[in-house]
């Protein structure tokens, strides 16, 4: 049920770009992206809804392929402040109940 993210970890130099992928075995009705810095709470980055609606920070971009049950987060011109663990997440609706699942996480480190 838990979405799988790739890569598990990535190291970037300032200014480089990165793509983080999120794949689910279940139908995705919406995809959320969060960033969590060490010792802090997750921070909302973006939500993508079926039909193409997106809501999030201006400097963050993402895609959502409903048919492939995948989403990707695009980080461009990375800054040191981008370092942290990125999680995708999605609600899963079943006849026994609904839950929210976070993905396996991607650790991103930006170095000078």
């Amino acid at each position: 049920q838990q979405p799988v993210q790739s890569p598990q970890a990535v190291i970037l130099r300032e200014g480089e770009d990165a793509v983080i992928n999120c794949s689910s075995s279940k139908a995705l009705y919406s995809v959320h992206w969060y960033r969590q810095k060490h010792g802090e709470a997750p921070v909302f980055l973006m939500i993508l809804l079926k039909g193409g609606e997106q809501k999030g920070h201006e400097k963050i971009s993402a895609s959502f392929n409903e048919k492939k049950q995948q989403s990707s987060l695009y980080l461009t011109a990375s800054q040191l402040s981008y370092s942290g663990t990125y999680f995708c997440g999605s609600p899963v609706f079943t006849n026994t109940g609904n839950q929210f699942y976070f993905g396996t996480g991607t650790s991103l480190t930006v170095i000078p």
Partner: protein
Amino acid sequence: DAGVTQSPTHLIKTRGQQVTLRCSPKSGHDTVSWYQQALGQGPQFIFQYYEEEERQRGNFPDRFSGHQFPNYSSELNVNALLLGDSALYLCASSLAGDYPLSYEQYFGPGTRLTVT
């Protein structure tokens, strides 16, 4: 605009004891979700409260229970604590919307629970 607040920040309990954690949602939000995050892992969904009722529940035993008050604040109660309950407990607030769990969530700083 006050964000999500949680109390206490840290807590140490003994195995078998009971604990209550508290959460106040972001202004304007009416839904509260609770998550457990073990060290090095992603948050695991415990349950969600809306209109003072548990609306959604994850794969957690009945030892985990909650409550939501008319002012939308919430409590998480854990009975008969086990060593494995040691974790960061996160509260997240959101709007209910037409589709449960489909609105962005704003997280509080968490409560670090240690069970000895």
